[in-house]
């Protein structure tokens, strides 16, 4: 099995390289933030608190440590997600190994060996990139706080390794669960069938409730007589509303639209169907992205009076925006691959390449507009309240919102490019 595992890494170089790049990024980011929380520049003074009660224990831990943990969780999420796709593309391999007599334990060991090997390879560039990242970040922090540049302590290296080790163990357990979850029969039956979901789950709560919660919470954030320092309740209801909208309201609206417009709108009917399907298929990724970005934005506002915490939460916001947008882009690219045959069939029944590109572009436009508008409608009012109260710098707020818009638009363009390339490739392949 060891020979086969290594052989597969070498033979399947493209996906191995991609997996290794993600690991390198994760190691680098984890290293930067572990080093940052240990760096003296950002270490807050020891809190003299009686540690006998749980709330006091939590209070004794600096907020930057919690933020650091959140960022590591983002990295874990990215690893989890990429791993999911890595394994998904290896479904055929798992099925072949399984029918050839490999036990579940052997298959786990097979993947563990591949993961461990790529991890060791990724450690070297990951730590080098991380070390340089720490220098840049400390330089940035030092210039703001007017302190000297701190070097990375030896313990940081060990801690970073431990964190990545935890991620790896987690991945192995995940793979284990995944292999157990999939029975080979399903693998055999669905190997060539892309799972395209088109129906929203049935919910007992009427759609209007989610829309009202979403809109209502935005109104409550803006209202001047509401305390801007205590927006947690509004945010909670906004999240419930967002969940309902992404989980079902959008696809039901699309369904109603299609009922009225089918056969009259040649491109839009297909684009809208794809849009609804994309939202439903990627709802977990999309929701995690929206929730995390809004939360990190909010946390940055809340800690605006504590420079250490604010800098870390601001960095966390950037990581959330970039990493999660990348994840959504990656998710959509995977879906594009799954839809290649579908577009090929549309071409076979008479759609031109130009028309297919139009269909694809309209779908991407709808998806990314949703990704952009739904969180922005919550973040902008929060920013407005803090800026209006003089608790947060206007330029900083505009930069944060602008960064979000830029990254989403940029990743939208990248997705349109990769999606279009996949469609064109499938049609050329047929020729």
């Amino acid at each position: 099995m060891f020979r086969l595992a290594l052989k597969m890494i070498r033979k399947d170089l493209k996906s191995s390289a991609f997996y290794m790049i993600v690991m390198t990024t994760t190691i680098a980011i984890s290293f930067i933030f572990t080093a940052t929380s240990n760096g003296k520049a950002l270490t807050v003074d020891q809190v003299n608190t009686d540690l006998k009660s749980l709330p006091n224990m939590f209070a004794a831990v600096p907020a930057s440590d919690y933020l650091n943990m959140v960022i590591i969780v983002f990295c874990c999420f990215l690893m989890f997600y990429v791993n999911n796709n890595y394994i998904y593309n290896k479904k055929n391999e798992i099925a072949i190994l399984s029918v050839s007599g490999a036990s579940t334990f052997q298959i786990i060991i097979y993947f563990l060996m591949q993961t461990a090997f790529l991890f060791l390879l990724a450690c070297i560039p990951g730590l080098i990139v991380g070390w340089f990242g720490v220098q840049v970040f400390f330089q940035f922090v030092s210039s703001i706080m007017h302190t000297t540049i701190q070097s990375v302590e030896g313990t940081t290296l060990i801690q970073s390794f431990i964190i990545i080790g935890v991620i790896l163990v987690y991945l192995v357990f995940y793979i284990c669960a995944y292999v157990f979850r999939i029975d080979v029969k399903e693998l055999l039956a669905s190997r060539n069938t892309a799972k395209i979901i088109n129906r929203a789950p049935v919910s007992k709560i009427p759609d209007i409730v989610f829309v009202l919660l979403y809109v209502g919470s935005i109104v409550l954030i803006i209202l001047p007589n509401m305390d801007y320092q205590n927006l947690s309740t509004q945010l909670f209801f906004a999240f419930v509303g967002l969940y309902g909208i992404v989980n079902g309201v959008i696809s039901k609206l699309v369904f109603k639209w299609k009922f009225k417009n089918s056969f009259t709108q040649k491109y839009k009917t297909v684009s809208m169907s794809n849009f609804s399907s994309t939202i439903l298929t990627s709802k977990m990724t999309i929701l995690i992205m929206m929730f995390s970005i809004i939360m990190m934005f909010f946390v940055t506002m809340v800690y605006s009076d504590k420079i250490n915490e604010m800098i870390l939460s601001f960095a966390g916001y950037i990581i959330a925006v970039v990493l999660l947008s990348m994840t959504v882009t990656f998710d959509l690219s995977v879906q594009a691959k799954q839809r290649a045959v579908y577009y090929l069939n549309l071409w076979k029944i008479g759609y031109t390449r130009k028309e297919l590109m139009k269909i694809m572009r309209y779908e991407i436009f709808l998806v990314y507009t949703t990704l952009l508008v739904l969180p922005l409608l919550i973040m902008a009012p929060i920013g407005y309240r803090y800026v209006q109260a003089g608790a947060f710098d206007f330029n900083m707020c505009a930069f944060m919102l602008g960064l979000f818009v830029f990254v989403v638009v940029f990743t939208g363009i990248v997705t349109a490019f990769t999606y279009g390339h996949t469609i064109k490739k499938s049609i050329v392949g047929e020729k």
Partner: protein
Amino acid sequence: MEKKELLRAQNITRVYGKGTPNEMEALHPTNVTIYEGEFVAIMGPSGAGKSTLLTILSTLDFATKGGMYLDGENAAGMEDKYLSKFRNENLGYISQDLTLIDTLTMEENIGIPLYVSGKSQSYIKQKVEEVAKLCHIEKLLKKLPGECSGGQVQRATVCRGLVNDPKLIIADEPTGNLDSKNAHEVLMIFKELNKKGTGVVVVTHDCQIASYSNKTLYVLDGNIKEIVEKGDMSQEEYYQKLVELTSEDIDEIFNEE
């Protein structure tokens, strides 16, 4: 001499989507026994439960109810490790859905079951060449699946199923991508191996393919509707008998008109 029992399914049922509104019993209580050296065909229309029965017999899926016995021991109580070892040592699974790994050469693909059992490099090479010769793809061993035709890839999947010298070959539509000449060649390989004592279970829609077997189980709506034994019949007579059996469904269609 009494034949040795290899697999026995006793009152097995398979329910999909249990506890959901889409619950469906794909296989009603069924009894099947496969002996060493038997050549059994499983026939029936689409959705009849043939593949469900096959995946349970090949220990890739478990029955919802009933017992599946391997060498007299119930598979439901067995550890995954033991079941996998049983598959590796005794079964050769061939399916047109389970094709080759694109990034490995034909040689490496065929050798996977031997890699799994930890055989030496030289042994794997020798066995792969042996089965490749049997399926006439010995000149393609260094090629990638993408560089070969659908029929050649299909033959390589057959080779992969044979490379571990299985006691029982389990094949789900093994000749789906092959023309009649190549299909005949593959089935003759099965027939030859069967003469030497290897058991064969084939799922097919095609009466011609089923006519190579010694016994046909006709599955309809999740039940074994009929068992046809070849006995002393010639292959042609046996084929005619199977055509008669399957034409009952076609008669129903004509009568509707």
